């Protein structure tokens, strides 16, 4: 276990035009922990995700991933450091088969880069990785189906599969259970628990039972500021969180 944090944010600010969305966030996520990011709608959770993963540029502040400064890197450069993310709105390769989706996600991690001198069919590590993830997702029967015709829950599962297939050890999931039924949520949470074992997880989630069950630590984001970052028990007892985020003091799960 290294002592460097998996993700470290230093006084990160982000404004769109003159509107500040992230207003000075400093956060340290220790490697190997499961962390949840909660907060009311519009608090800036997805924006924070987009800043960490390089989709947006910070206005000021620094972001480090595993000790490396990624503030000015592109999404693919950050991904190559071993950080992968999923999206709140399903973001998959719709015309390719489920298996091809996972295989493409596993290519860079296996070191194939922009190769046109290897055949993917004989790229053993990549194919095995894709098969393993396919099985973890329970999508083996849908292997050759174009991803665009999968059911919503299946697409959400594939979304997570693409995120983990590359072998990243820092994983960011943006509302992985959004729009899912109770039983689908349970299945996805079990899957997340399984595939993030020993890795660093940062997850945006609205389902409080999931958050308090899964997370080692919870960060509470309100109007672009982290008002608390602590263990589930302490977050539950935190009066500021109850007031600012949950409205009435007694309603915390």
């Amino acid at each position: 276990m290294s002592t460097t944090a998996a993700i470290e944010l230093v006084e990160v600010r982000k404004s769109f035009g003159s509107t500040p969305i992230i207003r000075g966030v400093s956060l340290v996520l220790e490697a190997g922990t499961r962390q949840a990011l909660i907060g009311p709608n519009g608090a800036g959770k997805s924006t924070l995700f987009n800043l960490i993963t390089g989709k947006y540029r910070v206005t000021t502040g620094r972001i480090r991933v595993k000790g490396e400064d990624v503030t000015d890197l592109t999404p693919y450069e950050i991904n190559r450091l071993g950080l992968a993310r999923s999206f709140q709105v399903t973001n998959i390769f719709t015309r390719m088969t489920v298996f091809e989706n996972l295989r493409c996600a596993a290519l860079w991690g296996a070191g194939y880069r922009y190769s046109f001198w290897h055949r993917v069919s004989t790229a053993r590590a990549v194919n095995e990785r894709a098969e393993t993830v396919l099985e973890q997702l329970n999508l083996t029967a849908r292997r050759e189906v174009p991803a665009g015709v999968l059911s919503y829950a299946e697409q959400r599962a594939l979304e997570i599969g693409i995120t983990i297939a590359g072998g990243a050890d820092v994983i960011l999931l943006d509302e992985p259970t959004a729009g899912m039924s109770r039983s689908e949520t349970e299945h996805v949470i079990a899957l997340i628990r399984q595939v993030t074992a020993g890795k660093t997880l940062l997850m945006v989630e609205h389902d409080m039972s999931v958050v308090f069950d899964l997370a080692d630590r919870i960060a509470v984001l309100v109007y672009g500021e982290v008002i608390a970052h602590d263990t589930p028990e302490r977050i539950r007892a935190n009066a500021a969180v109850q007031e600012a985020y949950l409205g009435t003091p007694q309603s915390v799960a």
Partner: protein
Amino acid sequence: MSTATTRPFAGAGVAHAARARRYGLWVAAAVGLLVLPQVVHTGTAIAIMNQMGIAVVFALSYNMLLGQGGMLSFGHAVYFGLGGFIAAHVLNLSGRGAIYLPVPVLPLIGGLGGLAFAILFGSFSTRRAGTVFAMISLGVAELMAASSLIFDRFFGGEEGITTNRSKAPLLLGLPFTRDREVYYLIAFWLFVAALAMYAFSRTPVGRMANAVRDNPERAEFVGYSQNRVRLVSFCAAGFFAGIAGGLFAVNYEILTAENMGLTASGAVLLMTYIGGIGSFVGPIIGAVVFTFLQSMLSDYTGMWLLYLGILFLATVLFVPMGLAGVLMLHAPAWRARRIGRLVGPYLLTGALALVAAVGIIGLLEMIHFVAVSEGAGTTKRLFWMAIAPRTLTPWLAFAALVVVGALGVRWTAPRAASAFAQASRPPVAVRAAATGEAGL
């Protein structure tokens, strides 16, 4: 990970059979290419087949952009033309004895020329996708059209440059003087290039080209720069377009600026799209059909480009998956051995569509005759008949054909469609399995 190594892949047997079938197809294609000139051996046929072979390589290279990579280019002929010009100049040097380069390797020189310019122009045009990419490709095509007038020595001005393949040194004593000998050269390069392009689509970067086409943002979040992926595809497409250009130089021994102009770029877009951009065989079918129609129609009518345009419009409007896509749609019916049930309904609707087409062609040809007034005559030969376009009767007759044909198609098409749906339904057992496996 470790569990997967001991477990055989799901459907390994099916995959194995599919692979055997693919190898079989390639061998069949090679044999077909070798035997073809023995079957159709007239001079015209050989000349058309040579033209087709070049068009197939060009269309396949174009589909690396459009179908595989999602890049709509209006200037792909630039790389075809530049490859051709470079090959022609090298052939001239070789013919003068300045360098040693036999004819069979010349297409490779064309390919390298196409590649060099694809790297140059691709370095900035692939930074953007979609409309911006399309606009830049148009700009590059215009740039080259202007350059062809400026760099007179290289492009030969309006007459273009000529070359002579019989002056180059021989390789293994093989001469390339007659069309038939050139046919085998084209067939060889066609096979090699098609195989290489097929293989490219199954490499890591070839698969990522599909991924970037589908979702460039997500591709970046699995570690790939969308610009770099597009650039690699673009360079490969330029390389194979250059090979086609090199074959053109060998076959026709002349290149003009037209070969890299917007019309040539438009033609490759048309043939690729008509054939179907969704599969590997699509552009092959498109290039063969397009070249065939082009050479056949241009013998009969001055309006052949109009008809190809109508064919393109009909494809875009009614069958955007192209000819290959239409064939693929019938795969379920074929597997269920019910394709025979479609013959009747298809023939009926097809015959009526033909009636309408005859009517439309008749009207168009008469308009053309009256508007252009070919010669001073009053009759025109059309469909093996003498027709007087300046009288009312033929106009009424052709208009009647259009109406009868169109109404007939409208009336019978639903029946053909339901016959298709019936025939495509999977057998009961397969259906049960399909619904069973969907359950999670």
